[in-house]
């Protein structure tokens, strides 16, 4: 190691800083070698076969990959990685493809490595309280497998019916319960997988601590750029025996925000705390009437869980605080069915936006909650300026906002305007002391805004960290870390300001 590595590292970081790497891939040779190594049913390369892998949950960004591999076991994963290593081919790992930031956007001359077939629950241990599962197991399937033991897996992204644990690890997925329970990084004990060259690695430990540097938290949320994870051991928690859910209507978003602050300041950490503005409520009620008060400026959902006596203590306090902070209507779900209905509306907010508008663009900034009023006023002003409507839903407890910008992709320039609108919200999030992404990841989508949140030196460290795991940068290239020319170009564009044509700017 020593000197050679250091020289290599600084050269590599400089090269990456100067421009995103282009790979010289022998397409025919790569296909031939993959076909010689793997059975037909594991490979897709015909245009109609790979079309479905062109994008993830962000359909505005598309790229056709050279090939898609769908290994059935870890040995085949390793084979794919070895062939790609030999030929210098980029690899983009993919779970269920539900990500919202273009994190699984293919690379034109690269192989998409789908881990969806690795879908076995290997072990649920009710005494050690963990589950060992393959990367392609769906998030909800873990809780379902654990339910017979009275246990559950806490992080619950809204796509949990479909999204995989491997994807959750890559994105450090959150969900509606993370204020109280934490995000993916707090619940993963150990991951197994491969380096870009196909060498086996184990990161983290079921002993709950890892010797040496904390590599596990580095890999969680690394957007598939450091290693390919094939197996995950997660912590399971005892299912809280009691749950209560409250719906409260407010005449202003600001009042609802103050009620949230008061609840937390009173020492209560609700399991879920979600807010929707008037526009979102109207959209939800059109799409799936669940009985939200349509004339309210903001609807707040607050869920408390725990032992029955805890919930009995906390619920009256929550109700009291909601009333004293100006809630004009407060409903407690009378039973599990009504509780499910309260949540169904919130969980349907995205599809509802898709119903009231031909297209919508979901933004994912986090701001300090005290800046909520300021942010909403800024968004209202941007709606005027960009000439587009925006519905607001937030994870109110932790300040994670999901503005849904409505647009019509078939109209000239509307997507570009929506994109610029979203970018401005993210930049404002940074200016208010927050971050450009709370839970959806940077991916291909927010790579420009990384120039705003991080300094050149910090971005150089990210390149260095990447090189420490993957010296050629072949795992998911072109994501998350922007090059210097990109940041310079983005800076110029921002100076010009507003919704100027972005269409000609190559994304990769």
């Amino acid at each position, binding site marked *: 190691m020593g000197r050679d590595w250091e020289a290599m590292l600084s050269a590599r970081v400089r090269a990456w800083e100067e421009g995103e790497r282009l790979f010289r891939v022998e397409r025919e040779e790569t296909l031939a070698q993959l076909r010689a190594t793997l059975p037909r049913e594991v490979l897709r390369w015909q245009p109609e076969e790979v079309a479905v892998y062109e994008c993830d949950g962000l359909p505005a960004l598309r790229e056709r990959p050279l090939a898609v591999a769908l290994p059935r076991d870890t040995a085949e994963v390793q084979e794919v990685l070895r062939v790609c290593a030999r030929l210098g081919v980029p690899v983009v790992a993919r779970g269920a493809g539900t990500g919202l930031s273009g994190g699984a956007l293919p690379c034109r001359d690269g192989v998409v490595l789908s881990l969806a077939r690795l879908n076995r629950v290997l072990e649920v241990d009710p005494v050690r309280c963990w589950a060992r599962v393959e990367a392609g197991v769906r998030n909800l399937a873990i809780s379902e497998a654990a339910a017979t033991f009275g246990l559950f897996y806490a992080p619950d992204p809204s796509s949990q019916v479909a999204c995989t644990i491997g994807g959750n690890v890559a994105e450090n997925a959150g969900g509606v319960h993370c*204020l109280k329970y934490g995000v993916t990084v707090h619940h993963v004990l150990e991951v197994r997988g491969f380096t870009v060259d196909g060498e086996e690695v184990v990161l983290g*430990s079921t002993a*709950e601590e890892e010797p040496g540097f904390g*590599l596990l938290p580095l890999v969680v949320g690394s957007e598939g750029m450091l290693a390919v994870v094939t197996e995950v051991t997660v912590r399971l928690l005892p299912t809280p025996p009691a749950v209560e859910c409250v719906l409260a209507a407010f005449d202003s978003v600001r009042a609802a925000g103050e009620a949230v602050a008061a609840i*937390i300041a009173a020492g209560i950490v609700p399991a879920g705390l979600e807010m929707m503005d008037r526009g979102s409520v109207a959209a939800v009620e059109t799409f799936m009437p669940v009985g939200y008060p349509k004339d309210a400026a903001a609807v707040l959902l607050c869920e408390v869980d725990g032992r029955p006596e805890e919930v009995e203590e906390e619920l009256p306090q929550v109700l009291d605080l909601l009333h004293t902070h100006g809630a004009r209507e407060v409903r407690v779900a009378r039973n599990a069915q009504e509780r499910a209905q309260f949540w169904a509306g919130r969980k349907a907010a995205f599809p509802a936006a898709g119903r009231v508008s031909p297209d919508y663009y979901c933004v994912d900034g986090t701001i300090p909650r005290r800046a909520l009023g300021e942010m909403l006023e800024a968004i209202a002003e941007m709606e005027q300026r960009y000439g587009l409507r925006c519905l607001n839903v937030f994870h109110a407890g*932790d300040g994670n906002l999901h503005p849904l910008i409505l647009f019509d992709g078939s109209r000239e320039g509307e997507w570009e305007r929506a994109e610029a609108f979203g970018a401005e919200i993210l930049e404002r999030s940074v200016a208010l002391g927050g971050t450009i992404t709370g839970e959806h990841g940077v991916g291909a989508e927010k790579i420009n805004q990384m120039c705003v949140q991080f300094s050149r030196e910090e971005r150089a460290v990210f390149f260095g960290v*990447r090189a420490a795991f993957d010296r050629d940068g072949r795992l998911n290239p072109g994501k998350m*870390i922007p090059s210097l020319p990109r940041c310079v170009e983005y800076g110029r564009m921002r100076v010009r300001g507003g919704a100027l044509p972005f269409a000609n700017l190559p994304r990769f």
Partner: protein
Amino acid sequence: MEEVVSRWRESLAEARARGKMVRVVGKDSKGWLPWCRRGADEVVFSMQDWQGVVRYEPSELFVTVRAGTDVAEVEEMLAERGQWLGFEPPPGSVGGATASGWSGPGAWRYGSLRGAVLGVRLLDGAGRLLRFGGEVIKNVAGFDVARLVVGSWGRLGAIVEVTWRVWPKPAAVRTLCFEMGEGEALAFADRLRPRALPLSAFFWSNGRLWLRLAGGERAVAHGREEVGGEEVEEEMAAALWRQVRALDGEPWRAVPEGMALWRLAVPPGTPPLGMGKILACERGGTVRWVLVPAGEEGVWKRAEEVGGWAWRWTGEGPWQQRRQGAVGEIEERLQAVFDPEGRLSGGPWGREE
């Protein structure tokens, strides 16, 4: 901030000029540990005077503090607003606690210090002032370097500022004591783990198990009925937990002549190790303190056999083994990212040549 940055760069320059290493210290509260002894060839960089709370937002559950600030001072401030650091960091400076990555007894319930770190400002071995993470709980922009820095013992740089997540202080806390042997206590932990009980700490030593319950008044009262045991008087209990948290007194500070103290991290559900003399078990049995004759190296292997790892606490190093293979190489390269000249010293891993 500028003063700290220029002082750090001067220390790096001095070390470079004189062919020395740089060691970061806070309040030196861990100076009694063998791997925290200063070498003659080291320039010491002190963070002790870099103190103060930068921002505290009780309703947003975070606090941002300069590295030299005393943990006790932060806790006093939080207590005024009914909050606390659930992971119970060791006494000393905020930067030192973060660099060590140690968590106290509360980690059993609230998770580790590493999980509670939301952001850091770091001065690295190349003299760069860097900020990773932030002050919000949900933040996935960029690699999670803030949590990589936790437990790096100054090897990646000097921590300048830390943002910790905080928790509301439970209304009721009660400690219960049980007379039981190691095996019985570990089996008891296995029965407690899957149950929804307001447990917050677990410590076994010398034939006694102490369990701490924390939560609402009624939840704790119910929990107490369910688990049994003798209730321990409040002040005595607080003193016990303080001691466990600080690793103060026996078994940590009074190691008999000719013996060595080891800390093992093992998976939950691991039965008694049957090795040396067991002094204490923490966190539901996932941390074990064992006394073995000095020079007995079989501990490394025993820990590995049960899926855990070992840490030599007293005696001569190496105190921890570096991981081998691809992971070990990644660790070395990572260090070079932050410390290209290899000038930063610290940590229980010894120095690589």
